[in-house]
């Protein structure tokens, strides 16, 4: 059974800190891994990773995939209160045409 595990489940830091969120997975025929940010309502897409070792970057957020060790990390530098959200990791197995989501990490940034 395909499985995605995120850690930590909850994290509270101060504004300006750097955080690292983890996502490990076990899927048959891995195709891609996606990160989403969910504030009060709809999750919004952040990154899609398909190749190992290639960092995707968007402003203060970056993510990298390790296909050998079956995990991905999402880094956020110089955190701001607007980064407070649930961060979701999802994985697709080839041919499945669906995503398997992890439990999410609830990140809280205190001023």
């Amino acid at each position, binding site marked *: 059974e395909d499985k*995605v595990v*995120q850690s930590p*489940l909850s994290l509270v830091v101060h504004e300006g800190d750097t955080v690292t969120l983890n996502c490990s997975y076990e899927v048959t025929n891995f*195709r*891609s891994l*996606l990160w*989403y940010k969910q504030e009060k*309502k*709809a*999750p*919004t*897409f952040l990154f*899609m990773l398909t190749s190992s070792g290639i960092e995707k970057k968007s402003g203060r957020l970056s993510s990298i995939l390790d296909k050998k060790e079956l995990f991905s990390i999402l880094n956020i530098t110089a955190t701001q209160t607007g980064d407070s959200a649930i961060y*979701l990791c*999802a994985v*697709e197995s080839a041919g499945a*045409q*669906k*995503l*398997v*989501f*992890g*439990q*999410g990490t609830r990140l809280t940034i205190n001023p």
Partner: protein
Amino acid sequence: DVKVTQSSRYLVKRTGEKVFLECVQDMDHENMFWYRQDPGLGLRLIYFSYDVKMKEKGDIPEGYSVSREKKERFSLILESASTNQTSMYLCASSLSWGDLEQYFGPGTRLTVT
């Protein structure tokens, strides 16, 4: 911008009622999905559809059915609502087969009493 809308943000129903949750997308996407989101469990796929009148079971289809009569609309039906179906329901769509970047609606928080 892709827009995915859901018919209600909050809904309260009684046990045994038939419940319809509607989802509409305006970008001609082929794929549509229904998830439920519960604390500590993340998003779990209930059903998805990759074409009009086509449907596939997700990971937790029991107690639910779906309908996709038109490309833009995907309905989730709870035939006889139960308290364990109290949850946040999220609809999503993606462009076509092989495109896994999903666009989500704002969610419907359903409470079954």
